[in-house]
C-alpha cells in the first residue's frame, strides 16, 4: 500500500519534471516527495486512530494509577506511560508538579519524562513503516531502558533534594500523600471521535513544519552528501564518531516524528546503526528549550546531571550497537 507514495514520487520527479534519475536533484526531490506525502498521510490516519483508542487516558488517570505502584514496577510503568501519552513540552511542567504533589517517587516521574520525548506512538508507526520493525523494536527498547535506568538512578541519588524548594518540600512532609481517586469517564463514540479529530488537527498544526524540515534535511543528505563523506567522518572504526554525533545533535531541536526521515537517510548512507541512534536520540531528548523549561522546577545541578546521564547513555548505546552490528 505504501508503494503508492513511491509511485507518486516517481511520477512527479521523472515524468512530470523530467529529471534524470541519476542526478542529485532528482534523488533528493524524490526522497522529499515520497517522504512528505507518506508521512503526512500516515500521520492523519494514525493520530486519529490512536487518539480514538486512548481518548480516556489522560495525565490525571496516569497519576492516580502510578501513585499506588511500588518503586520498581513504577519505573517500568512510568516509562511505558511516557511512551504512550504524548504531550507538548509546554505541558511537562504542570505534569511534573502534579506527580510530585501526589508524591509519586521522583524517579518514576523522571522515567516518564525521559521516555516521553523519545518515544511516541506516531514515531513508532513511522519508524516501522520507513525503517522496518527490527529497527523500531531496538529504538523502543533502548528508549524504555534509558528511561527506567534514569529513574532508578534519580531515586538512588535521592535527587529530590535538588528540586526547587517548594517542590522539594513536598517530599519532606512525613504524612502520606492523600490517595487520589480517579473516576474513569465513559466516553461515547461521538466524544471519542471529537477528541480524536481535535487531537489530529492540533498535532498536525504543531508538527507539519517540523516534518517538512526533517524530511528536507533527510532529502538534502540523501541527494547531496556523498556516502564517502559519511564513511570518512562517521564511519566505523573511529571511536569518537559516536560522542561527536551525540554532541552535534544537541542544538538540533526536533521532535521524534521529524527525526524519522533523518534517521532513514543516515542509515541509507550506511552510517552505522549505533552512531545513527546516538545522534537521533540526542537530538530528540536533549534540547535547550526543554531544559530551560525544566529549570523552573529543578536546580541547575540536577539538570546538569540529567543531561550528563543522557549524553553518556547515548554514547554507550551508540558504541554497543556499532560493536554488535545487528542490522
Amino acid at each position, binding site marked *: 500500500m505504501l508503494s503508492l507514495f513511491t509511485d507518486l514520487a516517481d511520477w512527479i520527479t521523472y515524468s512530470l519534471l523530467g529529471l534524470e534519475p541519476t542526478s542529485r536533484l532528482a534523488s533528493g526531490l524524490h526522497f522529499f516527495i515520497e517522504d512528505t506525502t507518506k508521512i503526512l498521510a500516515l500521520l492523519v490516519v494514525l493520530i486519529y486512530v490512536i487518539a480514538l483508542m486512548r481518548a480516556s487516558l*489522560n*495525565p*490525571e488517570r496516569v*497519576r492516580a494509577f502510578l501513585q499506588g505502584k511500588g518503586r520498581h514496577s513504577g519505573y517500568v510503568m512510568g516509562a511505558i506511560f511516557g511512551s504512550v501519552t504524548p*504531550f507538548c513540552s*509546554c*505541558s511537562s*511542567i*504542570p*505534569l511534573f*508538579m*502534579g*506527580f*510530585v*504533589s501526589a508524591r509519586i517517587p521522583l524517579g518514576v516521574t523522571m522515567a516518564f519524562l525521559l521516555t516521553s520525548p523519545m518515544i511516541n506512538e506516531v514515531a513508532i508507526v513511522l519508524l516501522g513503516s520507513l525503517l522496518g520493525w527490527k529497527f523500531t523494536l531496538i529504538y523502543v527498547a533502548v528508549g524504555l531502558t534509558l528511561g527506567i535506568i534514569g529513574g532508578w538512578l534519580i531515586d538512588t541519588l535521592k535527587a529530590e533534594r535538588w528540586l526547587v524548594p*517548594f*517542590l522539594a518540600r513536598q517530599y519532606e512532609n512525613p504524612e502520606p500523600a492523600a490517595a487520589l481517586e480517579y473516576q474513569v469517564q465513559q466516553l461515547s463514540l461521538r466524544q471519542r471521535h*471529537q477528541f480524536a479529530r*481535535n487531537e489530529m488537527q492540533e498535532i498536525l498544526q504543531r508538527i507539519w513544519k517540523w516534518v517538512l524540515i526533517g524530511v528536507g534535511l533527510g532529502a538534502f543528505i540523501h541527494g547531496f552528501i556523498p556516502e564517502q563523506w559519511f564513511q570518512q567522518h562517521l564511519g566505523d572504526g573511529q571511536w569518537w564518531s559516536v560522542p561527536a554525533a551525540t554532541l552535534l545533535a544537541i542544538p538540533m531541536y526536533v521532535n521524534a516524528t521529524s527525526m524519522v526521515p533523518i534517521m532513514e537517510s543516515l542509515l541509507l548512507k550506511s552510517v552505522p546503526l549505533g552512531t545513527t541512534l546516538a545522534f537521533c536520540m540526542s537530538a530528540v531528548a536533549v534540547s535547550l528549550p526543554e531544559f530551560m523549561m525544566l529549570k*523552573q*522546577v529543578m536546580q541547575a545541578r540536577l539538570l546538569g546531571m540529567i543531561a550528563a546521564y543522557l549524553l553518556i547513555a547515548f554514547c554507550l548505546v551508540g558504541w554497543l550497537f556499532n560493536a554488535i552490528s545487528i542490522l
Partner: protein
Amino acid sequence: MKTINVYGSGCRNCTVTAERLTQEASARNLDVQVEKVTDLEAIMQAGVVSTPAVGMDGQLVHSGSVPTDEQVKQILDNV
C-alpha cells in the same frame, strides 16, 4: 463579581482559553473576571496536572485542553 482562573505557564493555548472565556462572558453580560495564573506553586496547589486548566470557586472545572465553545458555555452556565 466572580473570578475564573485560567491556569497555565503562559503558552498560546492558555491565552486562547482566557480569551474564549472573556468573550463569552462579555457576550452574556456576566460579571466575571478571567485571571491568568502563571505562578507554578499556585498551579500545583490548585491540583492541575495538565494545562490549560480552568478553575472556579476553588474547583477545577476543566483541564488539559483549550475548551471548546460548548465547554466554555457549560463553564459559564455555572456562574
